[in-house]
C-alpha cells in the first residue's frame, strides 16, 4: 500500500510549529489546523513560558517562511472532527472558517481602521492587536461592530470579509501531530493568591506583555493610582497550589529569579522577596540566575505554604509558613509566576483519535519515546504532553520528525526553482525607483505623484514609477513585469517592512531577472507615512531616503549565490545513550554514520541505569551493531578535523591507525561522569555510599534501619555552579524502595528539584520519608563515633545512622571536552560542558530564519545529552532525537546554497594584509587565514553576515556583499547632503 506523505498538525504550540518547519524542510507538505482566528491567537500565551521578557515571537514563528516556501496549508478557527484509518494512511475530517482579515493578503494599510465609525475607548471596533509587535494582526471587536461593511468596501486587497462561512474538509495524511496549547490558570485556580481581586496582584506574563512596547520600566509596575510600589513579592504559584490545579514547567524558578533581578535593576531601592518552595532551576545556567538574584539583593524565601489577600487598595497581605511557624508580611505588589493546566481538550482527543491521558490529564507518551502516543502514527508535542518550557517544546518538534519519518511516504514538496538571473555587467547602469502606493492607500497620506516627479529628476535615476504593491502574489508578479519592462538593472523599492516582507521583495526583484544584490528596499511606511504628520516634511524625508538608496544601489555589484556540496555522512563521538540514539536514527533513514567510542564497550554510563533502562539500552546497542549504515570504532578517538558545516574532513585514530573521514555533521555525545565526593567519609567508611551504589544494591531486602540521604553533594557549589538535575529524582525513587523494605529514611536537602510526570516527591511524603532542609552553605556533617556512624545536622542535632547515601552530581569530562573543543573550534561553557546558547534558549535560534535556518545554528556541530548539560535518561533521548532530526533535514540535500548565500562577507585580496583581526572577531568561525596566500578567507557556509569583520578591518579589505564601504559612505553622504 502506498503511504501518504503529508502530515496534519492540530494546534499551534511551539512544538507544533517547529515540527511543521522541520517537515517542510524535509520535503513533506503540512496541513496546519489553528484553533484560533489568527496566527498567534492561542499560542500568544507563550509569553509566560519564556523566562525572560523579550518576546522573540518574530524569531520562532516560521509562518512567513512557510508561506514563502508554499509548503504549509493553514486553516483558521479549525476544529478536528474525525480521524479514521491507520498510520501512513489517515483520513481526517475537520471544520474551518477562514479569517475575517486574511493576514496573508492584508497589506496592513490601516484603511479599515480609518473608516470604521465605531470608536471604543482609544481604538475602533476593528483594531490592531496591541501585543504582537512583529506582525500586525487585525481584530474585530464583535460586540461593538455594527457590520456596516465600510471596512470591507475600503479594503484594497479584498483581504477583509466580514461574513465568512464555515466549511468541513477532508484530507488524507500519513501522520497526525497533536500540538494543542495549554490552558492558563483561571481566577478560580489562583484564588489562594487572590488573583483578580486587587490591581496589586498580577501575573508575570501580564507584566511581560504590558512592557512589550516600552521594555520593563518603572511604569510596567505602576498601580492605578500612579504610585510606583517599592515593596514586592514574587510567588511561584504551582509550588503552593492545590495538587492538580496547575503544573510547574521548567522555567518558573528562573522566571522568578529573573523578575527579581529586573525589579532591582529598575528600582534599586526596592525590597523584593521571592517566595517558592524550592529553587527548581535545573536547566542549563539556571542556577546562575539564583546566584545573580541573591547578588542583586533579592531575598529568596523558601517557604512551605503561602496565601495572599488584598489588605487594602494598594497593599497585599502575605501569610506564609516557614519552619513550622506562621509569618506575615505586607507588600505593595505581588507578582504571580503561574504554571500550566492540563489541556482541556484531552478528553475530546481521546474520543476522536484514541490517544490516552496520563494520570495528570496530559497526553500519554510511550516510554523511551519523545512524542509517540499510544496510537501508531499519532504524535503529541509540547505542553499537550506535560507542562513545558520553550526549549523542550521546540526540541520535541524536531524529535517528532525523527520519530514520524517511518510512517511517511516519498517527499511531496519541492521548493520552486529560483528564476534565472540576467548578467547586468554588460549593461549600462540604470536605476529604477518603484514607489509603493500600498494599493492606493498611501495616496491621501502623501502626494506620491509629486514624489515620483522629484525622484525622476535625480540625475542617477533613469526610471520612476508608482506601483500597487509587491507583497501579494499578483502584485509581486505585476511589479516584476513593470521592472522588466522599464529595462532598469538596479532597483530601489520604496515599500514597507523588510522584517516581514524581505523574502517577498527579494522575490520580486529576482522574478524581474535581477540579482537581489542589485536592489535596495526602504521603508516608506514605517519610516515616513505612519510616524509623521507634516506632509511637506514627509515628502522631504522620503526623498532623502530614496536618494540614499539610489546612492547605494549605484555601487551595487551582482554576485551569484554560492553553493556547496553537503557530505551525506555523520560523525557521532561517544557511544553512550545519546550517541547511540542519534547514530541509529540517522542510519535508519539511510545515511552513513561513523560512531567512535573511546572505551572498549558501548553503552557509556550504563551502570547508572535501572532495569528497564538497561534493557532499552542493550536493545539499542545490538540495533546499532547490526545496522549496515553504522561503522563503529571502539577505543577510538578524533585525531583532527578541519573544514566546516557540511564539509568536514579529518581523521580518527583507531588501534593506532589513522583513518581519514569526510562528514557533513558532527554530533558530540561525549557524556559526563559521576562526581566522586571527597567529603562525608566517602571512601573511608563502607556505610557511606552514593545513590548509584545504593541503586545497584537494592534487592528488596532491608539494608539498614536508619538511612540518611544528603542531597547536592558536588552540585550547586562554587566548583559546579549548576544543578545536576537527576539526583533528586534518583534519591526519591531509592527512598521509596527503601521504605518498602521497612527502613526509616531521612533526606537532608537544599532544594527538592523533583520534576517530570511522576510525582515522586508527593509519594515519598505520603510514605513517611522525612525531609529536612539545610541552608545553602550549612551542609550536615558525617562523623564516626567509636564504631557508630552519626550525621550531625546543621542545627547540631545528631542522628545515629546505619547508612549514609550521598546524592552526587554529574560532572563534565572536562579534559576530554576541552580536547575536542580545541580540535573542532567549538566553544565550551563556564561549567565545562559544551556550549550552545541556542539550546538554552532555543527560541533564539530560528530568529536567524531569514538569513540562517536553525539547523545551521551551531554550524552542524551539535552537542547532545550529557555533553551539553546534565540530563535524565529520557531527556538525553530527546536531545539526541532533536539533533537527529536537524541532521536529517540537511543530510538529505546534495547541493545546498550557503545558508546566507547572497549576503556573505568577502575579502578584497589586494587590500588584506593577513593581520587576522577579523578571524578573532568572527563569532561563527567563518574566517581563517589562508596559509599559502597569507590573507583572510571566508567560509560561505559559516558566515552569518553580521558584519563584525567589516567594522574591525583596519585596511577596509573585509566587506559584506551588500555593505561595501563605498556603498555605506555614499549612503551616509546622501542622507546628510
Amino acid at each position, binding site marked *: 500500500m502506498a503511504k501518504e506523505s503529508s502530515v496534519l498538525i492540530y494546534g499551534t504550540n511551539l512544538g507544533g510549529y517547529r515540527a511543521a518547519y522541520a517537515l517542510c524542510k524535509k520535503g513533506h507538505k503540512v496541513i496546519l489546523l489553528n484553533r484560533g482566528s489568527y496566527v498567534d491567537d492561542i499560542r500568544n500565551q507563550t509569553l509566560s513560558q519564556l523566562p525572560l521578557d523579550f518576546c522573540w515571537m518574530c524569531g520562532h514563528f516560521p509562518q512567513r517562511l512557510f508561506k514563502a516556501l508554499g509548503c504549509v496549508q493553514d486553516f483558521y478557527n479549525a476544529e478536528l472532527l474525525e480521524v479514521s484509518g491507520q498510520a501512513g494512511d489517515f483520513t481526517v475530517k475537520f471544520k474551518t472558517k477562514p479569517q475575517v482579515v486574511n493576514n496573508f493578503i492584508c497589506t*496592513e494599510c490601516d484603511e479599515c481602521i480609518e473608516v470604521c465609525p465605531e470608536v471604543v475607548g482609544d481604538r475602533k471596533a476593528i483594531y490592531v492587536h496591541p501585543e504582537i509587535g512583529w506582525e500586525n494582526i487585525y481584530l474585530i471587536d464583535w460586540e461593538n461592530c455594527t457590520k456596516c461593511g465600510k471596512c470591507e468596501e475600503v479594503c484594497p486587497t479584498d483581504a477583509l470579509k466580514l461574513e465568512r462561512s464555515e466549511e468541513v474538509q477532508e484530507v488524507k495524511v500519513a501522520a497526525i501531530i497533536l500540538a494543542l496549547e495549554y490552558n492558563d490558570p483561571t481566577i478560580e485556580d489562583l484564588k489562594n493568591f487572590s488573583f483578580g481581586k486587587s490591581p496589586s496582584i498580577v501575573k508575570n506574563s501580564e507584566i511581560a506583555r504590558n512592557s512589550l512596547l516600552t521594555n520593563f520600566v518603572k511604569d510596567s509596575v505602576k498601580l492605578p493610582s500612579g504610585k510606583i510600589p517599592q515593596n514586592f513579592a514574587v510567588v511561584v504559584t504551582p509550588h503552593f497550589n492545590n495538587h492538580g490545579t496547575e503544573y510547574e514547567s521548567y522555567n518558573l524558578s528562573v522566571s522568578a529569579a529573573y523578575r527579581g533581578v529586573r525589579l532591582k535593576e529598575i528600582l534599586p531601592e526596592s525590597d523584593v522577596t521571592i517566595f517558592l518552595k524550592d529553587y527548581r532551576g535545573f536547566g542549563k545556567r539556571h542556577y546562575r540566575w539564583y546566584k545573580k538574584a541573591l547578588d542583586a539583593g533579592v531575598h529568596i524565601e523558601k517557604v512551605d505554604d503561602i496565601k495572599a489577600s488584598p489588605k487594602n487598595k494598594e497593599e497585599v497581605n502575605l501569610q506564609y509558613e516557614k519552619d513550622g511557624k506562621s509569618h506575615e508580611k505586607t507588600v505593595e505588589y505581588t507578582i504571580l509566576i503561574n504554571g500550566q493546566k492540563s489541556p482541556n481538550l484531552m478528553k475530546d482527543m481521546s474520543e476522536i483519535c484514541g490517544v490516552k491521558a496520563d494520570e495528570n490529564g496530559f497526553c500519554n507518551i510511550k516510554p523511551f519515546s519523545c512524542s509517540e502516543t499510544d496510537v501508531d502514527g499519532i504524535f503529541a508535542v509540547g505542553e499537550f504532553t506535560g507542562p513545558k518550557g520553550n526549549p523542550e517544546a521546540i526540541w520535541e518538534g524536531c524529535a517528532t520528525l525523527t520519530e514520524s519519518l517511518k510512517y511517511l511516504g516519498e517527499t511531496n514538496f519541492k521548493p520552486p526553482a529560483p528564476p534565472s538571473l540576467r548578467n547586468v555587467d554588460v549593461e549600462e547602469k540604470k536605476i529604477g525607483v518603484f514607489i509603493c502606493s500600498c494599493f492606493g492607500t498611501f495616496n491621501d497620506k502623501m502626494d506620491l505623484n509629486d514624489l515620483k516627479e522629484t525622484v525622476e529628476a535625480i540625475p542617477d535615476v533613469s526610471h520612476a514609477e508608482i506601483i500597487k504593491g509587491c507583497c501579494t502574489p499578483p502584485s509581486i508578479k505585476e511589479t516584476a513585469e513593470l521592472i522588466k519592462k522599464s529595462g532598469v538593472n538596479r532597483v530601489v523599492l520604496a515599500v514597507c517592512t523588510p522584517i516581514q516582507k524581505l523574502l517577498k521583495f527579494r522575490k520580486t526583484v529576482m522574478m524581474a531577472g535581477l540579482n537581489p544584490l542589485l536592489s535596495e528596499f526602504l*521603508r516608506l511606511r514605517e519610516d515616513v507615512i505612519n510616524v509623521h504628520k*507634516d506632509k511637506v*516634511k514627509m515628502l522631504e524625508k522620503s526623498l532623502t531616503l530614496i536618494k540614499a538608496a539610489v546612492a547605494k544601489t549605484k555601487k551595487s555589484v551582482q554576485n551569484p549565490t554560492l553553493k556547496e556540496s553537503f557530505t551525506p555522512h555523520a560523525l557521532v563521538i561517544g557511544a553512550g545513550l545519546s550517541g547511540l540514539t542519534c547514530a541509529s536514527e540517522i542510519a535508519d533513514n539511510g545515511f552513513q554514520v561513523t560512531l567512535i567510542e573511546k572505551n572498549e564497550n558501548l553503552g557509556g554510563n550504563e551502570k547508572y541505569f535501572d532495569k528497564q533502562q538497561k534493557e532499552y539500552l542493550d536493545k539499542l546497542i545490538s540495533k546499532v551493531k547490526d545496522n549496515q549504515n553504522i561503522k563503529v570504532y571502539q577505543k577510538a578517538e578524533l585525531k583532527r578535523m578541519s573544514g566546516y558545516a557540511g564539509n568536514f574532513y579529518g581523521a580518527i585514530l583507531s588501534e593506532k591507525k589513522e583513518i581519514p573521514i569526510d562528514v557533513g555533521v558532527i554530533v558530540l555525545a561525549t557524556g559526563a561522569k559521576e562526581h566522586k565526593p571527597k567529603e562525608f567519609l566517602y571512601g573511608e567508611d563502607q556505610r557511606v555510599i552514593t545513590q548509584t551504589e545504593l541503586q545497584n544494591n537494592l534487592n528488596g531486602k532491608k539494608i539498614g534501619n536508619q538511612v540518611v540521604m544528603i542531597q547536592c553533594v558536588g552540585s550547586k557549589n562554587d566548583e559546579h555552579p549548576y544543578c545536576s538535575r537527576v539526583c533528586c529524582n534518583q534519591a526519591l525513587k531509592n527512598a521509596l524502595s527503601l521504605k518498602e523494605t521497612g527502613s526509616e529514611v531521612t533526606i537532608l536537602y537544599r532544594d527538592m528539584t523533583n520534576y517530570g510526570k511522576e510525582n515522586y516527591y508527593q509519594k515519598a511524603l505520603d510514605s513517611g520519608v522525612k525531609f529536612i532542609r539545610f541552608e545553602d552553605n550549612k551542609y550536615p556533617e558525617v562523623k564516626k563515633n567509636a564504631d557508630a556512624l552519626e550525621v550531625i545536622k546543621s542545627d547540631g542535632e545528631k542522628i545515629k545512622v546505619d547508612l549514609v547515601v550521598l546524592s552526587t552530581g554529574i560532572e563534565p569530562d572536562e579534559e576530554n571536552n576541552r580536547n575536542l573543543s580545541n580540535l573542532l573550534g567549538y566553544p565550551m561553557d563556564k561549567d565545562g560542558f559544551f556550549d550552545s546558547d541556542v539550546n538554552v534558549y532555543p527560541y533564539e535560534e530560528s530568529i536567524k530564519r531569514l538569513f540562517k535556518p536553525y539547523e545551521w545554528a551551531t554550524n552542524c556541530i551539535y552537542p547532545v545529552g550529557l555533553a551539553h548539560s546534565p540530563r535524565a535518561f529520557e531527556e538525553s533521548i530527546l536531545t539526541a532525537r532533536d539533533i537527529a532530526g536537524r541532521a536529517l533535514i540537511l543530510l538529505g540535500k546534495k547541493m545546498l546554497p550557503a545558508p546566507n548565500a547572497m549576503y556573505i562577507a568577502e575579502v578584497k585580496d589586494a587590500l588584506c594584509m593577513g593581520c587576522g583581526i577579523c578571524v578573532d572577531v568572527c563569532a*561563527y568561525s567563518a574566517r581563517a587565514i589562508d596559509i599559502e596566500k597569507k590573507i583572510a578567507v571566508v567560509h560561505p557556509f559559516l558566515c552569518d553576515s553580521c558584519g563584525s569583520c567589516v567594522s574591525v578591518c583596519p585596511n577596509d579589505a573585509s566587506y559584506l556583499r551588500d555593505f561595501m564601504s563605498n556603498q555605506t559612505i555614499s549612503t551616509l553622504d546622501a*542622507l546628510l547632503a
Partner: protein
Amino acid sequence: MNKNFTPKIIYFMCNWCGTGGAESASAHHLYYPENVLPYRVNCTGSLSTVLILRAFIDGADGVIISGCHPGDCHYEDGNFRERKRVATIKSIIESLGLEEDRIWFRYVAHGEGKRFVDTTTEFNDYIKKIGPNPLKERSDT
C-alpha cells in the same frame, strides 16, 4: 536655544531589534520628529568608527545607535562591541571639539516602539538644546 534649528540626526539601527522597534512604533502610529533619518545595518557591531565619524564630518548634529538588548544580539555580541566602540568614539569626537553626548547608544527591543519614539524625541530635544554640530562651520574637516 535657536528655535529655527532643525538638527540632522542619523539613527543607526540593527536589522533586528532596532528596526523592529521602529516598526512597532509605526504599527501603533507613534509620532516622532521627521529630521531623524534611519540607517539600517545588519547588526550594530558592523558599524565601524570610520563610518560613524563620517556622519559627523558630513554634518550630522547627532547620532543614535540602537541594537538589541544585552544577550539578544542576533550575532552573539555585536551590540557589546559596538557599545565599547561608542565609548571610544565619544572621546574622539570630544577631541574634535564636539560634545561627547552627540552620540547615544540605546538598546531597543523589537516590541519597544514606545521606547524607540521616546529615544528619538529625547535626543532631538537634547541636540536642539546644545545646538548645531560645530564641525559644519570649520573648514579643516
